[in-house]
């Protein structure tokens, strides 16, 4: 009868009020965050959707039973959903289920690439500006304002015209116009944190500016940036899909949700599934990121703990 007590033990270890190591303290904190997300039904739904997206992207060849998203079969074009083609086929006879699966990879690539550019850039500009203040603050914030004034889609159009359409240029265009709000959030947080006593304490200990920024201010700004990024994912996915729809994002024959909706536009009245299936995918994934973002905001909110 020792088996049931084992889960009890690791649960006790995680929930201990007097952890014995830094590892246990951090694990306990992460555990409490996870419990808070799971207890919130909307956040849990978001977490499951995002996990499913990850699974779809990673296991696409497996889930597609080895079918090629680019394989055309003109004899089977525009077939409605059936046992052989779960979500139907498009105008070139390609299986829409397989294309939606592979489309998750494109979407995830765009989301990851944009996050990798936007979060570090926004954090760096924002924390420097908020902590150092003065002239640096003014200069960095005016640069931020200039980038904030660019309309995202129009800039993407300009990029596509200058560099040629493609996912990479779509990512550059989205990232260039998406970072200013992050810089503003990070700046506001860093400016508040810079005034606090615990920052004065590390200053008095002789810490360098770089050390104060990297070890004390950035970790505190990170949580609100992550929440904002999760909430922005929907917008990023929609912009990427919009660029695909306009023919400026991923190029055919790549399976990309926005481009798929676009190609189904001409037959939407007679063959509704061609545009609807990738449209549902865009909708569900955007919703999932929004729900997860809301949940993360509740968990990270220091006032709740």
């Amino acid at each position: 009868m020792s088996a049931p007590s084992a889960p009890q033990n690791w649960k006790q270890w995680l929930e201990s009020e007097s952890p014995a190591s830094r590892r246990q303290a951090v694990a306990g904190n992460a555990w409490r965050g996870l419990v808070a997300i799971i207890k919130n039904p909307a956040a849990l739904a978001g977490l499951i959707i995002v996990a499913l997206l990850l699974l779809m992207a990673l296991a696409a060849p497996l889930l597609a039973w080895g079918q090629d998203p680019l394989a055309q079969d003109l004899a089977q074009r525009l077939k409605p959903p059936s046992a052989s083609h779960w979500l139907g086929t498009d105008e070139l006879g390609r299986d829409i289920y397989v294309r939606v699966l592979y489309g998750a990879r494109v979407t995830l690539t765009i989301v990851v690439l944009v996050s990798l550019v936007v979060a570090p850039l926004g954090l760096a500009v924002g924390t420097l500006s908020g902590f150092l203040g003065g002239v640096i603050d003014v200069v960095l914030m005016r640069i931020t304002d200039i980038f904030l004034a660019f309309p995202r889609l129009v800039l993407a159009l300009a990029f596509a015209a200058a560099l040629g359409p493609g996912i990479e240029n779509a990512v550059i265009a989205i990232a260039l116009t998406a970072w200013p709000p992050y810089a503003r959030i990070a700046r506001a947080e860093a400016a508040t944190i810079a005034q606090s006593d615990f920052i004065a304490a590390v200053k008095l200990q002789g810490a360098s500016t770089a050390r104060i920024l990297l070890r004390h201010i950035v970790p505190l700004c990170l949580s609100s940036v992550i929440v904002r990024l999760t909430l922005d994912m929907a917008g990023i996915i929609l912009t990427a899909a919009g660029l695909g729809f306009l023919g400026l994002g991923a190029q055919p024959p790549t399976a990309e949700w926005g481009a798929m909706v676009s190609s189904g536009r001409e037959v939407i009245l007679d063959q509704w599934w061609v545009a609807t299936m990738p449209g549902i995918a865009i909708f569900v994934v955007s919703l999932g990121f929004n729900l997860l973002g809301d949940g993360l905001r509740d968990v990270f909110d220091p006032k709740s703990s």
Partner: protein
Amino acid sequence: MADMIKVSGLSVTFTSAGRSFRAVDGVSFSVAKGESFGIVGESGSGKSTILKAVAGLVKFQAGALELNGQAMGFARSRKERQLLQYVFQDPYGSLHPRQTVDEALREPLAIQGIAGAEAKIAAALAEVGLEPKHRFRFPHQLSGGQRQRVAIARALILHPPILLLDEPTSALDVSVQAEILNLLARLRAAHGTTSILVSHDLAVVAHVCERVAVMKDGRLVEILGADALRAGVAEQAYTRQLVAASRGYARGA
């Protein structure tokens, strides 16, 4: 005895949106090595600002500051930072909310490049009366008194010759206040630390300090011994007024 802290003609002016406010106006005093010096005054009298100027957290526009015989400005080297540490008023704001007690105590050792962190952290916790079980807790898992003990441990782990105390007990319960004051007195005796205590509580200052400076509107009114303060024997009318006020509302005959 040699002066550990020497402040002469110190003035601090805050400028905001074109308007300036002189928070400290030509204050001079000196504190001998191992002495405990108190500064009292009402809110806005500039007592905390003096402490921040001595610590190097606030720029001073005029006057001179000497710590252990060295002239000090606003910008200080890592070595010069070893001369003093500071205990803040609010134990809720003076600890990093996402760092455990262990990390808070490890940071000063890491910054100053001092080896043997494990043993030093354990010793510092024991010295301020915290148990090993508190070591890996986050600040939100500690009470106000425990947080202030962590802040004191953090200040003392570098063994600074000077300790600046900015109303270290005013945010705490009355019962915890006495514990913290006794702890500070014990640690001062053990380490021979020179300290300045800023407080609006005359009883606290008279209990802890040997000499007390009275401040009003950024100026030093007078410096008197703790005995004189306790007895209410002051030369200046303002000090007598302050002492009378601290004794509270006296029921009329």
